[in-house]
């Protein structure tokens, strides 16, 4: 039957295609015979409109780009093929080059012969042939490209930041200070995140609270920041510049307006609950509580499952003593809808559950602690007012063992390095020694003290007389083999420096547990339409060149949500994300890839097959004319409706049937004269 490729294919005469094959140093040239490929393209694809084919060391370099621009101007090229790395890396670069030479950027097509050929194949002949096929496909495809104009969308200046840890706080302040509105959504009753739980921060040992609290307060009081704690994002609609976000504001059971934050209710509440969040399970809180005295906002929440009133209907102690009568037992969740232009995700991390390594005895042996427990233990505002004591609450340890890489760099748990554990362990070594004078042992695989002043801190801790044993601890046991082990925790380890097994009896063991993604990170990623690594860390747009943006326009990531990192790095990334957002806001509008679907009305039969297919509600049906229409603003260009339309009445710019069908022919070398094929 009628094959629309022929009908819509521009006649050969029109095509003036330039093919540019990149060596990428030896990255490509090392495996693919780029010279042969270029010559081949010049000859075998001549009849398909290829007028010039060049190879060059680095196409992406400015001389490389100049080559293209020059040819466009001098040879009047109207199509360009660049065979190099992945389009995700340099598509922009070469499109810009074309634009500079006055060629519509969308008439340039990239062919990946690095990521998809030279880097994954070893057989040079086969790789070279595959590169030819790829280019042939690109040529056929680009012949069907049409000049496109990017789609311009306005940017709503308001920004949503999810997660009130240090990264989120930093982003929020940067943007708010620049004079734009920020919604900061935090799941817990207060912002501050993990940093608020710490006592000191490495390597400078300045007091965590002292540097964080002011920031927390300025967030709480900032006119440009709407702080939504005890809240969670439920749904995200829309697209960059124009997101509409549904937030559930959980019932605090306290009227934030009336409450003065005096704290009497917490004092009077008879119900004591182990605080597994802020106190890391090492301390208690009440059934009505603020995580800490420094909480922002300084407004308590009622822990409904633990509150006697909700259990028995009696008590009401808090209510009775509350002067401003701010307690609202009947308060309900609120659903808010926020309209924002950009979103920053700073949802942080979770501590590795050390109980998963039973032979380290956490949860079994009382005096085995986790890093976070020690943070609280050393914290002056913590359950022991900063006294480092054993589980009994009084005894001071005389010897302490700190085990590194707990749950990290271990194929049984997490392969990755949690980055912060080394420095954190050194910090503990210092603090414990300082507070107790105890002898401290560190058991490590390597000491990773990169970054400013870190190694200096390591030296300092060494000088303090801390013992360092290089070796992965086999087990922590309370089974003595001799009298001086009795009553102690024995750390069984192979000292790899001296190459012998050691059993070191200590009073207290600190497990420097690694960092893990939030348990619900995958659901969160789904809600926001971004992707997660296998472990659950959010995936950045590019590991090196763009560790802040995501694949989804308008959604940025900061802090540990993207991967383990320490405070300075989190702050830096938070600020960077803010800068990116501010840039967007300043532009007021942004250009989007013109990859969109549209309906050819006279072809549309109004069968309504496509109507239910669009998750972005871009498809509407006009009962009057009995035709379907696609709203280009809402369309995200996935092309599902294009593929589904039984009448072939929907076309997709950028990924049209013609382009793909032609590319198939090209890839299968259907476009080469028989003799050329055999040649």
């Amino acid at each position, binding site marked *: 039957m*009628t094959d629309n490729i022929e009908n819509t294919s521009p006649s050969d005469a029109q095509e003036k295609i330039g093919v540019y094959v990149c060596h990428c140093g030896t990255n490509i040239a090392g495996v693919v015979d780029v010279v042969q490929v270029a010559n081949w393209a010049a000859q075998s694809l001549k009849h398909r409109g290829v007028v010039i084919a060049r190879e060059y060391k680095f196409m992406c370099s400015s001389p490389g780009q100049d080559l293209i621009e020059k040819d466009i101007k001098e040879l009047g090229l109207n199509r360009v093929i660049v065979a190099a790395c992945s389009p995700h890396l340099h598509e922009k670069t070469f499109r810009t080059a074309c634009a500079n030479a006055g060629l519509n950027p969308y008439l340039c097509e990239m062919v990946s012969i690095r990521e998809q050929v030279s880097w994954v194949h070893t057989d040079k002949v086969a790789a070279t042939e595959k590169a030819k096929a790829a280019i042939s496909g690109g040529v056929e495809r680009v012949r069907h490209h049409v000049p496109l104009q990017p789609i311009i969308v306005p940017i709503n200046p308001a920004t949503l930041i999810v997660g009130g840890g240090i990264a989120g706080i930093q982003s929020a302040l940067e943007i708010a200070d620049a004079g734009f509105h920020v919604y900061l959504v935090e799941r817990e009753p207060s912002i501050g995140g993990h940093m608020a739980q710490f006592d000191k921060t490495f390597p400078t040992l300045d007091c965590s609270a002292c540097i964080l609290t002011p920031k927390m307060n300025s967030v709480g009081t900032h006119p440009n920041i709407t702080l939504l704690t005890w809240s969670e994002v439920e749904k995200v609609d829309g697209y960059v510049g124009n997101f509409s976000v549904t937030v559930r504001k959980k019932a605090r059971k306290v009227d934030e307006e009336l409450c003065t934050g005096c704290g009497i209710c917490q004092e009077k509440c008879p119900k004591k609950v182990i605080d597994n969040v802020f106190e890391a399970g090492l301390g208690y809180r009440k059934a009505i509580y603020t995580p800490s005295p420094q909480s922002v906002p300084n407004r308590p929440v009622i822990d409904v499952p633990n509150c006697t009133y909700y259990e028995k209907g009696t008590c009401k102690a808090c209510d009775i003593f509350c002067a401003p009568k701010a307690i609202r037992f009947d308060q309900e969740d609120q659903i808010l809808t926020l309209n924002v232009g950009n979103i920053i995700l700073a949802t942080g991390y979770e501590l590795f559950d050390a109980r998963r390594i039973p032979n380290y005895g956490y949860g079994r042996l009382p005096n085995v602690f986790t890093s976070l427990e020690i943070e609280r233990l050393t914290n002056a505002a913590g359950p022991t007012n900063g006294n480092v004591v054993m589980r009994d609450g009084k005894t001071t340890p005389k010897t302490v063992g700190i085990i590194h890489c707990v749950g990290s760099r271990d194929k049984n748990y997490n392969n990755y390095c949690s980055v912060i554990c080394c420095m954190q362990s050194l910090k503990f070594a210092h603090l414990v020694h300082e507070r107790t004078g105890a002898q401290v042992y560190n058991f490590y695989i390597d000491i990773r003290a990169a970054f400013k002043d870190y190694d200096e801190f390591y030296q300092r801790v060494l000088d303090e007389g801390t013992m360092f044993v290089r070796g992965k601890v086999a087990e922590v046991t309370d089974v003595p083999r001799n009298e001086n082990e009795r009553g102690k925790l024995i750390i069984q380890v192979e000292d790899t420096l001296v190459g012998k097994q050691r059993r070191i009896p200590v009073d207290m063991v600190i497990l420097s547990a690694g960092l893990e993604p939030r348990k619900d990170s995958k659901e969160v990623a789904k809600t926001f339409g971004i992707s997660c690594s296998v472990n659950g860390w959010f995936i950045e747009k590019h590991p090196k060149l763009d560790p802040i943006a995501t694949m989804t326009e308008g959604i940025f990531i900061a802090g540990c949500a993207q991967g383990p990192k320490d405070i300075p790095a989190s702050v830096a990334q938070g600020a960077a994300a803010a800068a990116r957002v501010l840039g967007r806001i300043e532009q007021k509008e942004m250009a989007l890839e013109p990859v969109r679907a549209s309906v050819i009305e*006279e*072809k549309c039969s109004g069968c*309504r*097959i496509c109507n*239910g*297919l669009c998750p972005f509600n871009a498809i509407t049906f006009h009962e009057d004319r009995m035709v379907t229409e696609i709203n280009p603003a809402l369309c995200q260009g996935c092309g599902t409706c294009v*593929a589904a339309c039984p*009448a072939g*009445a929907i076309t997709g710019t950028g990924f049209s049937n013609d382009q793909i069908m032609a590319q198939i022919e090209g890839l299968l070398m259907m476009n080469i004269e028989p003799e050329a094929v055999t040649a």
Partner: protein
Amino acid sequence: MTAKPKFAMYWAASCGGCEIAVLNIHEKILDVDANFDVVFWPVAMDAKYKDVEAMEDGSILLTLFNGGIRNDENEHIAKLLRKKSKILVAFGSCANEGCIPGLANLSNSHEIVETAFNTISTDNPNKVYPMASYSMPEGEIHIPTILPVLKTLDQVVDVDYYMPGCPPESHQIEAVVDLVVKVLQGKAQLPPKGSVIGAGNSTVCDECQRARNVKTIKSFERIWGVAPDPALCLLEQGIPCNGPATRSGCNARCPTAGAQCIGCYGPAEGVVDYGARLVSAFASVIDAKEPEEIDAILDGLVDPTGQFYRFNLAGSLLRAAAPAWKAESTHEKEKA
């Protein structure tokens, strides 16, 4: 010999419905008679192949060619008429896309013959099958050879226009006759070569009067198994109606008559593969996410390949099933 332009109509592997459809333009047939010198139209008159051969190339102005290319004879005539005709029209589903006989491409020609000559009522103990040439006591006699794969007209010769339908609706034929007559009188222009004439650009749903909603298919039904709502889209009621993918132009006759569209008008304008469109459309609106559920629903489509390629098989991208291709390649070898 008159000065009137010459007209020819020919059928290859077809059922003759196309000729009947032409006769069904009733009075309009006289216009044809008035405007054309009908030089070759076996159904309506006698003429001689030798005369056609004698004509000079391109001397026939308009040839309506219906029927698919089933045997070497069909192919020969197709090429001859191509030579002799200025305008060659693939007329009717068979010439356009193979039509029902195209379904034969699902099996190879041997299977076809064997099946036909071993039915329960056939008395054929010695497995006698027709042979291209057979010598009787009196001498050799011949019959044409069946090709392994039934071909559409444009798979053997260049085609100027396509007129789909099984058969093309009479009102469409009338329209085309009007057009041609106008063109002859210089009152109209011919459409660009390769275009489809005598049909719409959209699909059957465009002409179908049944009400429709956003589609979701929870199960496929058999037309005999339900009492369909006479006013509601059949597909929405689970009846596999090919209307959404089938070119408009028939006034949605079958759906209007309560029967599902079976797709005789072929794919819509610009569509490359008719069946693929239906695969995609039907699958897209299935209301299930788990592979098992999906399979359960798909089980309701007892004959997907037949459903999607009933008329279009020979004209589809894949064109025939593996067995037929095997036969074809051996055939090619024999030829070589």
